[in-house]
């Protein structure tokens, strides 16, 4: 067993346990924490494949921003109550999901193994990774030349997301003043936080 193998096996176990934990936790807070575990495992595999920049971004953006936003919403709404998972609202849905899941794993695994054999094999079309420069330098060069247009469109997307979040968080109609005072405060606080993240 080489070091690579040990790293892969440990990270894979962390990822799979975390992913199953997301599904099977009855409490959404536990699901969010299990999601963090999976994200860290994926970050480790990014490092193992020498995608150092993406590993850092994975931890900062996913574990740092997205999961915190999830936890924030859970706490804000107070929906952190355990859900009763023993009832199956649609009869037979879970066994069906299990069958579909096993079939999908098989199909995707076969596809993945075949894909390695039949991919075009065209190496380094955009820019080689092993040119001796750091991962960030290579990534930045491509991002700001070949993919500059997509990069700019990304900023438009983020602006749209901010506008969307503000519109969503606003109270739809300024209605009866009876429940205004307490709620307005909550609305404002929420809007601020979401714009901040984006």
């Amino acid at each position, binding site marked *: 067993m080489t070091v690579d193998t040990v790293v892969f096996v440990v990270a894979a176990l962390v990822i799979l346990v975390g992913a199953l934990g997301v599904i099977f936790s009855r409490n959404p807070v536990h699901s969010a924490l299990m999601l963090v575990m999976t994200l860290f495992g994926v970050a480790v595999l990014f490092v193992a494949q020498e995608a150092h920049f993406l590993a850092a*971004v*994975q931890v900062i953006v996913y574990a740092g921003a997205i999961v915190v936003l999830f936890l924030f919403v859970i706490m804000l709404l107070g*929906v952190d109550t355990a859900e009763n998972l023993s009832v199956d609202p649609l009869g037979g849905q879970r066994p069906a999901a299990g069958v579909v899941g096993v079939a999908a794993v098989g199909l995707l*695994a076969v596809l993945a193994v075949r894909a390695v054999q039949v991919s075009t094999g065209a190496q380094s079309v955009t820019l080689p990774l092993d040119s001796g420069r750091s991962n960030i330098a290579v*990534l930045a060069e491509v991002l700001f030349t070949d993919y500059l247009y997509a990069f700019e469109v990304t900023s438009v997307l983020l602006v749209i997301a901010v506008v969307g*979040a503000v519109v*969503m968080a606003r109270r739809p109609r300024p209605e009866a003043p009876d429940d205004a005072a307490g709620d307005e405060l909550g609305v404002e606080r*929420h809007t601020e936080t979401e714009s901040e993240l984006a």
Partner: protein
Amino acid sequence: MQVDETWYLVLSAMLFTIGACGLLVRRNPLVMFMCVELMLNAVNLTFVTFSNVLNDVAGQVVVFFVLVVAAAEVVVGLGIIVAILRRRPNATADDVSMLRG
């Protein structure tokens, strides 16, 4: 035993399937969202693996864009969920069926 790209691809297939099954089975909209994140991560892992195999940086650039889209999607999606759950606490995905065809 040497780790090769097939291991990574099979692992990401499993991760994607777990996310998909969770999305189908769970009723809590927040947990469903987390399952979408799992699926996105599985795809990211595949992109990075192929980027490594083909020695091409484009795969990592795509992952970068997926991260941005995921962040934007979470912001808007959670905004929708908050808007729904503020009206009706305890609403599940089954209660929001007005868009059903």
